């Protein structure tokens, strides 16, 4: 059983990760994680100290658990840049300091890094309001480029065709087929009937305004980052999917830290960086679960939680993995899942850090829509 230890500030509780039921635990690892949590209260997603929290927490967890593999995410700069307007200099400093924090972690931990950026952010030029369709447009809080259309009328299709800011309209079958060709063992864990009839992709700089998008209008959104920066002294990779095999092949003789830095593009990376393919043809991953899962599993994962998914029509009366966002199973083939050594993850990307890497122990913030509720540790196993 995987345990979730929730720290809501001066108040801790342990739960079964899968059922959400309270648990009493005598697990030494859970006890250790709980003590780490109480020493590192989360400052909040857009707080300047949120990335230092990641480093500090990860270093303490390394100290106590002695892992061989660490997965870390730095996301404060992404949240801040997405929601708030900064002067140009201040914005540069935001991204540069995220990289400095990653470097501080590497220096203090002594781990060999593989740093992956999710690519540049650019100003939002405009939004397409699709609330007036006869069918239903569904986007998500964190997607800018994609939107799903369910049961459109002929009139809807004519309207969509007329939008200059729309890059393309792709049918569900075309979308699935494109990835099935690129990934012979493509996995679709969700109900395809709840996937949209058509996927829309916005032109660069444009986003959608529909059911499911955030109440906070974004200031910056991800660019079309078909190439993302990677820094890796362990060797070069050409595609995000190659990172997993690279790390796994070098783990026997290295302690390795996979570090994801969200919203950060090429020019903030060290000079010896290289660029790496993200996605297929016209589809690039935005920062988020699909990006993380692609890196971690070494497979394309656009359908782990498909864009435009009619999530609310899922049969949802039973509680499953209530602390894990939309995820209702532990993903397979993740980076650390069958790794015999010890592994941890720490990050300020909430709700899925503990699911996407398959590590033994993870600590992440517990924030929803930027509301800071505390932190969560997950202990998947402690038999190593």
């Amino acid at each position, binding site marked *: 059983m995987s345990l979730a230890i929730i720290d*809501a500030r001066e108040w801790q509780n342990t*739960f079964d990760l899968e059922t*959400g039921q309270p648990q009493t635990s005598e697990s030494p690892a859970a006890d250790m994680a709980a003590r780490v949590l109480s020493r590192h209260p989360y400052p909040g997603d857009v707080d300047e100290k949120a990335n230092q929290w990641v480093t500090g927490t990860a270093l303490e967890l390394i100290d106590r658990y002695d892992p061989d593999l660490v997965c870390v995410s730095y996301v404060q700069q992404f949240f801040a840049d997405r929601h708030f307007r900064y002067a140009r200099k201040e914005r540069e400093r935001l991204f540069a300091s995220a990289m400095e924090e990653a470097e501080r972690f590497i220096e203090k931990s002594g781990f060999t890094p593989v740093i992956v950026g999710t690519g540049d952010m650019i100003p939002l030029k405009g939004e397409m309001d699709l609330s*007036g369709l006869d069918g239903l447009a569904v986007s998500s809080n964190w997607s800018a480029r994609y939107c799903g259309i369910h049961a459109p009328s002929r009139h809807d299709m004519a309207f969509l065709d007329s939008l200059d800011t729309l890059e393309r309209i792709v049918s569900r079958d075309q979308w699935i087929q494109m990835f099935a060709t690129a990934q012979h063992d493509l996995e679709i864990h969700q109900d395809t009937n709840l996937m949209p009839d058509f996927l829309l992709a916005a032109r660069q700089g444009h986003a959608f*305004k529909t059911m499911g998008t955030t*109440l906070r*209008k974004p200031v910056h959104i991800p660019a079309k980052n078909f190439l993302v920066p990677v820094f890796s002294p362990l060797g070069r990779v050409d595609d995000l999917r190659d990172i997993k095999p690279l790390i796994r092949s070098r783990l026997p003789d290295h302690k390795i830290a996979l570090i994801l830095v969200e919203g950060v593009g090429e020019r903030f990376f060290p000079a010896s960086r290289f660029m790496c393919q993200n996605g297929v043809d016209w589809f690039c991953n935005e920062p988020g679960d699909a990006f993380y899962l692609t890196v971690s599993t070494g497979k394309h994962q656009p359908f782990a939680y498909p864009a435009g998914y009619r999530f609310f029509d899922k049969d949802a*009366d039973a509680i499953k993995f209530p602390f894990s966002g939309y995820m209702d199973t532990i993903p397979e083939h993740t980076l650390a899942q069958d790794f015999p050594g010890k592994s941890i993850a720490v990050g300020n990307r909430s709700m899925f850090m503990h699911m996407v890497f398959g590590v033994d122990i993870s600590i992440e913030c517990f924030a929803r829509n930027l509301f800071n509720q505390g932190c969560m540790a997950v202990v998947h196993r402690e038999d190593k």
Partner: protein
Amino acid sequence: MKCHFCERRCDLADGRSFCGNFAEENGKIKERWPDQWCTYSPSRIESVPFYHAYPGSRSMIIGTAGCNFRCRYCSYGFIACKDPAQLQDVMYTIAPEKLVAMAKKMGCHNIVFNVNEPAVSLPSLQRVKKYAEKQDIPMGCLTNGYITPEATQMMAEIFSFVHIGLKGFSDAFYKEFVGIPHIAPILRNIETFSRTCHVEIASPVIEDVNDHELFDIARFIHDIRQDIPWHVFRLLPEHNMKQSVYPNIDRMNQALETSRSLLPYIYFHNFVGSRWVNTLCPGCGEVVIKRFSLGCSGDRLDAFLAPDNTCTCCGTAISMLGTRVGWNDKQTTVWESVI
């Protein structure tokens, strides 16, 4: 000319109302931004949180912009505490019949006005009600209760279930944290609503600020009707209180202990993993409704163990508007039939 929607009773001759939503035109009050919504999204009714109305149901959450309060800790300050004129690019313009059709497309059992104060958008909400009624879709809302008797009457006609914020129990608290002079109109309106609507009450607790008023609130609710559910929220310091400390959960729970003898349905939540979200039978103390709380609009039904709203152990009736509704009961895929 004075605005008659909220107890600020703004003089519209000065321009627009405090909330920014009303102005005077040809001797009449004009709604400045009719049919404009900041959101329309499906959510669990428990996340609002209504705990004693249509448990398990899917609600379409709507809201507008602007508010008659300026709570220091507002969680939606970026929408509620802004002039609606400045938010035009984030709003959706959706005609009332279309909004109701949207609720049907998304398989929602009811419509709940959340986010900001409904009194600032009552004319639009009256129009929505007209279509919702035809489609048999009940409407509910969250209100701060600082509204005129006329507006209370209008709201009671639109909404069959109302969640009222009772944020403290003194003029001093309301003056300092909310920016209004008197609590009396709110207390008056809670009594009015409780006569015609299903009512739940919510109070955010701020340690060392209003925790000493909890028992007074409990006694006030008890004297109206003791089966009114009372939600005590651990305040999540937001907006202008971001730097404040988080109230201590054990101490705040302890502070509620004396109130529990007065009211059978007290819930203490708004933090992940709360243990005080289940409904216990007032007769025998058995758990009759189990819930799970992720805090912060993340509550959900876990198990409804009271068929026909009755405790299976002792037969005591559990106070409830409607009864258990399955999450997918209203799901529809044949949208041509929608309106």
